[in-house]
């Protein structure tokens, strides 16, 4: 007797967005990246299509991360002092899909790097790499509102991905992205209702749906991961169920979330029963990344080249064997 497989049928589709513009589209990037477009839950390729595989952005900071554990510094060595060299290494050696430049040092409570100096860094990174670029703001609304218009202009025509817009501070960034043709990251604080509300607010500003991504806030395994996972799963189920206001590609921050955990940072001497630190941090980052893939993340932001390689291998296997 043959058994019929019970397959889920979905009516909705995740919006497809493009990051990066090549010369054909008026930019200078060597390639463009597409996100989204799914008509199924992640990797359920018998139930629907997943036209674009998830991508990995490698994160570069505008400041040398002196606080990083040595195991994380080691693959980048001196490049950590120079964001452009760091980005180039991520592109040439570690095969990142795109570069995420995080303006950590621009935050007034960190290094308070000026707008002018930030623009110099952005231009240097843009010259150094051909990959599509993401810019992640300082997280200080006042400073970000000064930074975003300048960053956006420095990348005009490149179809970058800029973030983040939050419910209390989205207008400047949205207007800027609209003016210069960029994509936007809409951030909500682990709150699906605010996530949806912000998407509506952005669409009220005439932000086209194919230029919005969702960052629902993410945490490492052991540090709030489950909350993010269930919110992202509900978001994706709503999208596939036909709710167009939730049907945007999702961004997951793995990098800093994992590498601030004790499990990634503690030395082997400190925690001998946890196994060698050199492998532990990489495993923690890769496991967190893979877990987010399973709830529908489209773009992962990561640090360590070895976790990036492990995660990419996993993506390729799932895209092939499902």
């Amino acid at each position, binding site marked *: 007797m043959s058994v019929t497989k019970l397959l889920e049928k979905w009516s909705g589709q995740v919006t497809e967005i493009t990051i990066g513009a090549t010369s054909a589209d008026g930019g200078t990037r060597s390639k463009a990246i597409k996100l989204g477009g799914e008509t199924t839950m992640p990797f359920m390729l018998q139930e629907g299509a997943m036209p674009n595989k998830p991508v990995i952005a490698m994160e570069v900071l505008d400041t040398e991360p002196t606080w990083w554990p040595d195991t994380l510094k080691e693959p980048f060595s001196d490049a950590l002092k120079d964001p452009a060299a760091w980005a180039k290494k991520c592109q040439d050696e570690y095969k990142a899909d795109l570069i995420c430049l995080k303006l950590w040092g621009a935050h007034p409570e960190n290094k308070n790097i000026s707008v002018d100096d930030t623009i110099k860094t952005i231009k240097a990174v843009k010259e150094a790499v051909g990959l599509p670029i993401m810019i992640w703001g300082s997280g200080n609304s006042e400073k970000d509102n000064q930074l975003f218009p300048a960053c956006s202009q420095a990348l005009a025509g490149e179809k970058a991905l800029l973030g983040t817009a939050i419910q209390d501070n989205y207008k400047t960034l949205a207007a800027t992205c609209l003016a210069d043709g960029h994509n936007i990251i809409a951030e909500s604080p682990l709150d699906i209702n605010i996530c949806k509300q912000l998407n*509506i*607010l952005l669409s*009220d500003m005439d932000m086209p749906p194919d230029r919005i991504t969702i960052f629902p806030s993410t945490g490492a395994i052991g540090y709030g991961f489950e909350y993010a996972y269930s919110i992202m799963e509900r978001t994706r189920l*709503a999208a596939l169920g036909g*709710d167009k*206001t939730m049907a945007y590609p999702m961004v997951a921050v793995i990098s800093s979330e994992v590498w601030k955990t004790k499990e990634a940072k503690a030395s082997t001497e400190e925690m001998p029963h946890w196994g060698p630190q050199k492998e532990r941090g990489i495993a923690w980052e890769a496991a967190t990344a893979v877990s987010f893939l399973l709830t529908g993340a489209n773009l992962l932001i990561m640090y360590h080249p070895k976790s990036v390689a492990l995660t990419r291998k996993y993506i390729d296997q799932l895209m092939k064997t499902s």
Partner: protein
Amino acid sequence: MLIIGERINGMFKNVRKAIKTKDKSIIHEVAKKQVAAGSRMLDVNVGPAAADDVAAMQWLVETIQEVTDVPLSIDSAKPPVLEAGLKLCKKKALINSTTGEQAKLEVLVKLAKDHNAALLGLCMDEKGIPNSVPARVEIGMKILATAMEAGIPTDDVHLDPVVLPVKFGQDQIKPMLETIKELKILSDPAPKTVCGLSNSSQGCVDRHLVNRICLVMSQAAGLDEAIADPNDKELMDAMITAELLLNKFIYCDSYLDAYRKAL
């Protein structure tokens, strides 16, 4: 929830006049307005007064499809009128309607099969509308079973528990609500449930209020679709809010706006 726009009906003066004078602009406007207000299917009924109802149906279907591509519910008691409309539909249509009367049911099931259309079945037969819930459900089951035997998928069968005006049959609303619940458990996947909402308020002074509350109560009982006036904004707001309370979509502060945008 699917709101099937009820405004293209020869019972309305403007539509009757449009059919008579072949004034397409009136039909275009009524169609566009209903779609803009959130209807994702439009009911088409030539009304009782059309001189040549087959020709009137053909003209209406063609005229509506000039301005919108939402599917149509072809509404007539006469199979030749239904067939004339179905032949011209570009999207999968809904036949509105059959009853449980054997001879009629056989003809309309065949029509649905021949034209790959969905079928709306009223839970009544040649003896009229039964008072009891089990008798209505029995007719619903008969319609469903006949459609299934002909190879029509169960979710292409839309069963109507039959809404009577509260003013003339006040004791009929409760059994109608009970019938909706029972119809939803007849098969898996379940048949769709639908009703002609505005019937509930026939003859009432505050028709909008009666329609609105009847819709919300029916939604709570499991109603999937209603043939109603989408231009009644308060009705649509109530429908959306009921969908929210039934956990059909994710809340946000602008949920009314969000629901309409997501349509």
